[in-house]
């Protein structure tokens, strides 16, 4: 309990989170502070590049661990399964949300938010808690399975998702080869291959200034989340907010259990917990716009970006780290 409070206090006063809060506040106050789209995309490419490579280099220096395959499998199972939980919970808490909208939302919660994962990594580094390097591969593996579940949920009653029936192989190619998965996994494998020598080359670019870039990026994410919050009025009821705050906790519980089952380290459990607790707001929304165009984007974007992301970033992460430490230590 003490650890939770300490971590939460430190987290809330860390520049990274304060810049996020600044962004939210500026957007709510309708300041014209904004980042060009190209800069925002550039920073996100940098973060994927850096976090992927660091994970790979860490695997290279600790040796290829047989746990990798199991952890990836565990992550895939979570990603497939969590949408069903999310769907049931949302329909129960907010019965007015249509089947289609609930299925689309569910897909987001099964998948993951890589920025939340990056923020966790920064926190673990600051606390000196190591995590398995291959968790980055787990993150990449968890992006897509949830989309399958969401499409199944949306269409099982014969209700077409819009463009008619099952999405073609073209859509699957796009989802599996989407830029962030390719960059994350590609950097990971390059990290594995080039190992310590490669790390020495890239360290001054991807390790030293990392937290600064993250702070600047979270300022931008705060602006986007704040804008989403302002747009959410009218779409998001109190019940829906309730879902957006409770679903991450349920996902976290599942991640915690799975992490313990797999025998991961404290850092690894925290990572899996965070992945399970987080909701996608890049890959899944784009897939949903193509596959389920009739589902309301305002609903899933408000939930994932406006509610769950800020919650995880501020209160969720310290909680997950504390719980993971308790479980791994026990």
């Amino acid at each position, binding site marked *: 309990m003490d650890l939770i409070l300490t971590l939460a206090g430190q987290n809330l006063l860390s520049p990274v989170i304060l810049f996020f809060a600044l962004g939210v506040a500026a957007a709510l106050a309708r300041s014209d502070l*904004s980042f060009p789209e190209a800069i925002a995309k550039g920073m996100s490419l940098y973060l994927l590049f850096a976090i992927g490579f660091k994970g790979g280099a860490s695997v290279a220096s600790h040796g290829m661990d047989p746990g990798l395959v199991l952890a990836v499998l565990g992550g895939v199972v979570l990603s497939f399964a969590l949408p069903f939980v999310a769907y049931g919970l949302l329909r129960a808490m907010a019965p007015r949300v249509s089947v289609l909208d609930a299925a689309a939302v569910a897909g987001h919660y099964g998948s993951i938010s890589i920025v939340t994962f990056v923020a966790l990594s920064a926190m673990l580094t600051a606390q000196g808690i190591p995590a398995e390097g291959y968790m980055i591969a787990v993150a990449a593996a968890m992006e897509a399975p949830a989309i399958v579940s969401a499409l199944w949920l949306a269409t099982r009653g014969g209700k077409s998702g819009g463009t008619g029936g099952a999405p073609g192989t073209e859509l699957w190619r796009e989802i599996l080869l989407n830029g962030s998965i390719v960059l994350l996994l590609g950097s990971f494998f390059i990290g594995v291959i080039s190992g310590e020598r490669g790390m020495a080359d890239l360290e001054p670019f991807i390790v030293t200034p990392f937290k600064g870039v993250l702070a600047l990026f979270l300022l931008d994410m705060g602006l986007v989340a704040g804008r989403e919050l302002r747009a959410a009025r009218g779409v998001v009821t109190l019940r829906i907010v309730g879902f957006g705050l409770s679903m991450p906790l349920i996902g976290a519980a599942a991640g915690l259990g799975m992490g313990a089952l797999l025998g991961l380290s404290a850092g690894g459990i925290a990572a899996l917990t965070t992945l399970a607790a987080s909701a996608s707001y890049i890959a899944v929304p784009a897939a949903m716009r193509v596959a389920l165009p009739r589902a309301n984007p305002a609903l899933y974007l408000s939930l994932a970006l406006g509610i769950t992301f800020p919650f995880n970033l501020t209160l969720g992460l310290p909680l997950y780290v504390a719980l993971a430490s308790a479980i791994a230590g026990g």
Partner: protein
Amino acid sequence: MDMKQAKRVEIIIEAVMERRVGQVLTEAGVTGFTMLPVLGGSGRSGHWTREGGVGRASGMIAVICLCAPHRLDRLLDALFPVLTDHIGVVSVTDTQILRAERF
């Protein structure tokens, strides 16, 4: 100047549909099209802006396609299924083109 009657089709549509719109236009037999970036906009689904965003889920693009009048029907027929359920607007304007042999 050698000018000929043509149609200027302007499609403002979600960025995620970029590839599909391109395929549809090509299959409908047009000789080309051009895509312009869009900063933001407003519609029944509210206000949006591209600033600061990293995903493609909420952006739009504008596609301009100049085509000979006799190709228009086939183009619109091909376009219709892509538009259904998707956010976007389409306008068709009479225009004149230079170097008409290219269309």
